[in-house]
């Protein structure tokens, strides 16, 4: 339905030159009206199966003088723009095993409904009973004309399997309303730039069409000529409008994707890169202010052969702490995910904020998280929340240690960071003293 809506807007916008504005309003040159107000953005990046604690968490007690452990090394260039939150716990209980709750309650902060999906233990469960924080914030931003964007939020995925269950969905627009990420970069491209593509294709055939209309006009009896003449006039008008549109279009470059990248395990690094490039482009064009970026799924079993790891991620994560090879592999895997985070940060840092101050990274907060704290114990304590960027004015360049604070309070601080001062989010029992003070 969505693509149709946009296609309709596109065709209409061709015909009414003033109506071209909503289509173009995302373009930098036309954003001056909003320039005074700083844009704020947020990306939530997910990778599964917990971490190897010794190589992930800094060993100090918190503060500015932390050393990035092996898993987090790729963040070195962004050390001063990073905030490492330790001791934040997912306290939501109820139906579903830890992987399911880890995923379904991670961004919603509320219990799963009872249901028919059975995990590796505990009771069966269904979907989350509330919406997720990214959607809560998106709804807030979309409600105001100054922060409204074409899509509001974008859900990127990398190798998320094509099935809908509690393990594959972390964003929810409401209770029982999971939101599917788009794992195929070509599909995402179409969603973002389909209209521009349509416009180009249409332009390419209009000359020929005009020529054919001329041939037919001359071929039909005189009485039938008028209807074809009127028809020709509409085609000419469309050609003119397309021409005018494409002049304005030049101001925003459409990214080029490598062709023929399959949606397969071994192409994961390329897919990740393509999705990141598309995400950065859509922020530059102000298509959306929030995004999620989901690698595989809870219990995901990516085989990172490019790191020399043949075994699936989930299987490795179950191995005991004493298994040194396994711990090393988990470290390598998380380091690879951290590299993706760093690449995203780098691309954002390189891109100047259109019509604003600094870079995109200065106005974007990246949050890297996980459904578990530790894979072999299925612990929901110490859920990783690694933050990069200046989007929400948090005090960065720190390692912050908490003593078992519920993650609902962190979700609240994200809303507050956007100026959305809600008192509770998810299950109110875990919102105790309100948002964590991160500024």
């Amino acid at each position, binding site marked *: 339905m969505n693509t*149709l809506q946009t*296609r*309709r807007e596109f*065709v*209409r916008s*061709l*015909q009414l030159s003033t109506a071209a504005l909503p289509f173009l309003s995302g373009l930098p040159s036309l954003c001056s009206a909003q320039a005074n107000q700083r844009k704020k953005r947020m990306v939530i990046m997910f990778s599964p199966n917990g971490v190897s604690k010794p190589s992930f968490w800094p060993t100090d007690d918190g503060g500015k003088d932390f050393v990035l452990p092996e898993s987090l090394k790729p963040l070195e260039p962004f050390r001063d723009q990073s905030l490492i939150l330790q001791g934040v716990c997912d306290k939501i209980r109820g139906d579903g095993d830890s992987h399911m709750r880890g995923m379904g309650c991670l961004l919603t902060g509320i219990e*799963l*409904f*009872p*249901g*028919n*999906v*059975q*995990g*590796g233990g505990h009771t*069966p*469960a*269904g*979907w989350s*009973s509330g919406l997720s924080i990214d959607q809560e914030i998106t709804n807030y931003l979309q409600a105001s004309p100054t922060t409204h964007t074409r899509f509001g939020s974008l859900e990127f995925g990398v190798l998320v399997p094509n099935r*809908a*269950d*509690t393990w594959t969905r972390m964003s929810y627009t409401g*209770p*029982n309303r999971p939101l599917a990420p788009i794992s195929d970069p070509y599909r995402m491209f179409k969603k973002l730039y*389909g209209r521009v593509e*349509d416009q180009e*294709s*249409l332009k*390419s*055939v209009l000359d*020929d*069409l005009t020529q*054919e*209309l001329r041939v*037919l006009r001359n071929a*039909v009896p005189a*009485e*039938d000529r008028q*209807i*074809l003449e*009127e*028809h020709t006039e*509409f*085609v000419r008008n*469309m050609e003119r409008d397309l021409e005018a549109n494409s002049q304005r279009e030049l101001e925003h470059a459409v990214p080029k994707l490598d*062709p023929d990248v399959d949606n397969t395990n071994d192409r994961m690094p390329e897919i990740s890169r393509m999705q990141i490039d598309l995400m950065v482009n859509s922020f530059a064009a102000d298509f959306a202010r929030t995004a999620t970026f989901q690698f595989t799924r809870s219990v995901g079993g990516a085989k990172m052969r490019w790191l020399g790891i043949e075994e699936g991620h989930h299987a490795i994560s179950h191995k005991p702490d004493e298994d040194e090879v396994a711990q090393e592999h988990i470290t390598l895997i998380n380091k690879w995910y951290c590299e993706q985070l760093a690449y995203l940060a780098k691309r954002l840092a390189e891109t100047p904020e259109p019509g604003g101050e600094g870079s995109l990274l200065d106005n974007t907060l990246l949050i890297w998280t996980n459904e578990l704290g530790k894979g072999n114990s299925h612990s929901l304590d110490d859920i990783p929340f690694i933050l990069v960027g200046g989007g929400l004015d948090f005090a960065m360049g720190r390692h912050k240690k908490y003593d078992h604070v519920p993650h609902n309070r962190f979700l609240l601080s994200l809303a507050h960071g956007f100026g959305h001062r809600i008192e509770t989010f998810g299950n109110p029992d875990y919102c105790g003293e309100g948002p964590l003070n991160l500024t």
Partner: protein
Amino acid sequence: MSLMEDEGIRIVHCHRLLLGLIPTMILVSILISSASAAEVDEIGSRLYLKRCASCHGEAGEGVKSEYPSPLMGEDSVSQLAQYIDRWMPEDDPDECTGEDAENVARYIFDAFYSPAAQARNNPLRPVLSRMTARQFQNTTADLIGHFRPPAKGEEKEGLQGKYFKAGKPKGEPQVQRIDPEIRFKFSDDVALTEVMDATGFSARWTGSLHAPETGLYRFTVRTDHAARLWVNDSKIPLVDAWVRSGTDTDFSNTLQLIGGRPYPVILEFSSRIQGVENKFKGEKRGLDGFLELHWNLPKRPTELIPQNRLVSSRWPKVFVLNTTLPPDDRSDGYERGASVSKAWDEAATEAAIEMADYVTENLEELAHAKKVDDDYPFKVRRFCNDLTAQAFRAPLSAGQKKFYIDRQFARAPDLEAAVKRVALLTFKSPRFLYTDLIDPISDDYAIASALSFALWDSLPDKRLLEKAAADELNERDQIAAEAERMLDDYRGRAKLRDFLHQWLKVDETSELSKRTDLFPGFNTQLASDMRTSLDLFLEEIIADKNSSFHDLVLSRELYVNKRLGEFLGLVPPSDDSFKRLTTDESERAGVLTHPYIMAKFAYDDTTSPIHRGVFLARNVLGRGLRPPPEAVTPEPPELRPDLLTRERVALQTEAIACQSCHSLINPLGFTLEKFDAVGRVRDNEIGKPIDSTGAYLLPDGSSAEFAGARDLAEFLVEHQETHQAFAVQLHHYMVKQPINAYGVEMSESLTKSFTDSKLNLRRVATEIAINSALAKRGAHGADQSESVVAARRGFLWSCRHRNQHHTRNLLGFFKLCDCRKTNGRGR
């Protein structure tokens, strides 16, 4: 609400002063002329030029400063004469009277006033027309459908059900059967409980469902376990409740469908725990689940999908255009595409993009090729050629192939871009968008196209194009055989059904509502039942090739379910499925008195003899009616509690200005007074007996009298005006060109053939299609050059290259081509 406010009234050119003309019944022919016809015309012509032309123009075309409207209309010579005698010329009405007035009237009637004179002076021809919205939707569906396989599997009412012990409906089924409808309480199902164990089971139903109307459907799966539903798409489920979550039992979603077509459907159910395969797998879930499949037809209440809409065979997916096309011009009383507008061009562009996207996204499937194969580019190009030829309803000429295919491939950066260019150019081309721009390769393709648009509002199918390619659409009986076949297809039936809806003025589904204090039990469900009852009857009529107009108008049969049967006071069937009953109600007369029609042509509290009479006069008898001179609000019954509806209507329309039309409308409408505002039979109103007598004034001035509805219906089926009105309206609905464009005598000859066929409904539809097709014969030059034959051959091949069982015909065709060449046969 003003009277006739909902009528799509066409304003006819009419002499300002003729409007108040005295009704025909009191007109007497007063003159017996002794002069010969030529002399009359001679005298009349001289008188006209001398006395009338200064205001009316030499040929009655009007004079701008005096009387600008042209002199044309439907009055008879004697009516005209009387008028002239009394009123003309305006400055001195005594100047032209008696025999002079008669001569002038005769002259202007013959020269330009009468419809026949108009048709003679301004001969109409079929005008170049674009596809209407209905045609566009059907054409795009069939164009894509051309590249998909035919229906598979056994054709039985209901869905094919397979039941499995496993949690997912895969592997060898334990039970296999046809389930007539999806309404289960599994613990009561002995066939299942005997086989399955208490840990639950899964099931899968496949087949197709028939969508009667075009519009937005809502599908609802009701279950306390897991289920998912696919409709018209085997990849993305329309309803996905495979993850059970919480206590909801209703899961629904909407889908746009084109009416009259079958759509593939898959439904899956599982009562077993899903997810991790471990010790929990064996947990007892029992066979206690329930599952139901419901739908809402567009703007209708929810109902279980009835058995007669489900079929066990698997039809291919249908391309349903999402783009909404603007409504078509209906000012001539039927939809036609004789004009273009900006809104239409925008929508057509949007549709072209939608289709081009669809084609590129489904390229492997449609081109029957795999990306990885070496011959992929070849097959894709061949597909493009087929697509464009199919869209243009004729093989591509060498020039067209170069322009639409080769040139686009040469200019595009890659294969996908090339396909997109070809598709966009093709779908934006007038050769696709207009119904009759068939390239003059031969008449046969134009004939094939005329047939399929008349009968289906769509493209010719494979077989019809094969007939065209084989030069087998020349003779009338060849065309007739195809027309008969096509009328029996689901698309032909859908078109007839839609026509009957238009004829009965029920084509727009507006919700019927009645005052519940007066009509307890009448609610949206019941209104919907009435509509279903009407549609089942119409479908039965259409399905039977022997059905006649008699059956339509005189049948005493009614389809009722329990609710409707009880409401109407009939002996109802015991459940909510519909059964056919023969009523013993003496006044019932087919569709004319069908409860839905009676309730529709009524207010929410009383009947409306005017609405009923207008329907009878205009649609059934084909009488032109002018709009009322001013909007009139009907008098509320409360103000005249002592009057019958009939008396109140008569009182309100008694003025002379009203009577010119209401003397026709009211006595027709009154005959239906024994049917109340909700379609039930009644004998009394406000405690007084109903008077359902009525009358109709025949063109010859005599009057037909009716005791009631049945009497009227029996008169109508024998009456020539009724036959003509039905045949002409059907022509307009099917062909979308004025009937006079096919010759001034077409209306009469079509009516005659309808009457002669004992009013056989399919015969008249076939006849109309044949006539519109035959009009294409000789329209094109008889170019039988070698290149044309070669192009035909190539096209034929492309039609059949996936259709191997036709090989024998193919050989026959080549032989035929050779004969043609040696004979040098042309038309």
